């Protein structure tokens, strides 16, 4: 796995990326800010963000992960 990884974080409803970064001690160089903070399961207050591998290793266990972010491809036509 190279590049960036996903981490998850518990936050209150309507949380922002800035809140997530503060909570995890992340700076802008370590975060894919264009990706932002993505709600995974609002009922559980669970969000995802995309960070560098080093940051992903550092912020756990305060955050969930780090999780792989593999490439995805269309399946067809069969080759």
């Amino acid at each position, binding site marked *: *796995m*190279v*590049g*960036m*990884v*996903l981490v*998850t974080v518990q936050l209150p409803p309507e949380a922002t990326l800035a809140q997530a970064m503060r909570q995890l001690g992340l700076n802008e160089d370590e975060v*894919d800010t*264009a*990706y*932002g903070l*993505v*709600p*995974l*399961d*609002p*009922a*559980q207050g*669970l969000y*995802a963000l*995309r960070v560098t591998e080093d940051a992903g290793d550092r912020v756990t266990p305060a955050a*969930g*992960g*780090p*999780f*792989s*972010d*593999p*490439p*995805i*491809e*269309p*399946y*067809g*036509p*069969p*080759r």
Partner: protein
Amino acid sequence: MRVLIQLRPSPDVVAAVAAPDLVATTADVTGELPGVALDHSFTPVALPQAQPATTGGDPLSLHQPLVFSMAPEEASVLVRGEISDDVSSARLALLPGRRMDVVGVYADPVIETSLTCGGTPPVGTWQDVARLLDVTRLRSEGYDGTGVALAVCDTGINAAHVTHQLGRDITIDGDRSWIPGGVSGKAGSFAVDHGTMCAFDALIAAPGASLIDVPVLLSRRPGGTAIDGLLSDAVAAFAHLRTVLEAQPGATRALVISNSWGSFSPAWDLAPGQPGNYSDNAAHPFNIIVGSLEQAGADILFAAGNCGAECKDRRCAYKGRPIVGANSHPQVLSIGGVDTNGERVGYSSQGPGRLSDRKPDICTYTHFSGSKAFGDDQPDSGTSAACPVAAGLVAALRTRWPASQLPPSQLRTLLHRTAVDRSDVGFDYDYGYGIADTGAILRVLERRAMRSPV
């Protein structure tokens, strides 16, 4: 009919046919045979004589230990020809009596693999698929997808191409479509490609559905490759789709999501067993959001993949159990592929799945002439086509049965229970529960409607 004729020519001819360094022809073996058009392109083949392995054995029994003799005095020779289909059985019986050197005449049936693989021509057309899905009945009973949101998560849709090929107008819901950051273009206006094929195929059963264009595979994020999207893009796309679902009135929620994509290789993933792994890990963020979106009322369909044992896609790199990650999620429908003859296509991935064993769930049709997105003579192929075909069927059913009245889990069970079992033993890893059966589905829904009117 084509026949194989077993001859016993002179020993020197048999020896010549059997000799590896000589090439004997049919003309070397025999002159004309009455009523037979000999195939002179066929190289005669020497056939050994089966003999009892023990002294005193039955010379006419093959159900005993045998030895095989290629001695020129004992072996025979096969040539090929054709006889008239007119009273062919009589001709087969009479020929040995006309020529002393004819030992026997046998049918030479055509043998061929019926397996549909990548690169083989289309099997039927999208109109055949419509007939097999009984779209006429669906429409006559009000199941045409009208009012149903059908998201195609793929490479983007070219609406003009779909409209042209279908011969009717389609609806692209631009307001509810979602385009990843950094991707230029607007909903319904992307280049003709895989996503256009998927959109076309989804509309076969649900012509009235509103297509939500989600070109997630066009995204190019830092850390990705030049040719693929990333799973994080799909996470973001599904988060958007939940806002679409939650904006719908609770009583009439209907969102169907078609996904003809996946991950081919473990090389970009963490190993199974590691906490950050995707392929085998229900706790991965994408698998979490899939579950939460289904829980909120979305019907999520994934292609099973094109890693079937008989003719898998060369990109397939998993050693076994190729239905991975969300494609094997227990809360999605994992769709395998059959051709319009109802035979599983050789590339359709077989179970068990990694997140849940019983995958694929069901099969629908693929490898037919449809969208022509890849050329006029190219089929809509792969489980990539089967998945949106199934998604269209689900969208059609949602026209009258929103998630509030038939939750996604119950709809999956309905599709399982009504599928045409191809194995005669219930669920199997080739076809899942079988091939989707519109008639059986509608019969169950009719009974359900009578019990609790919609």
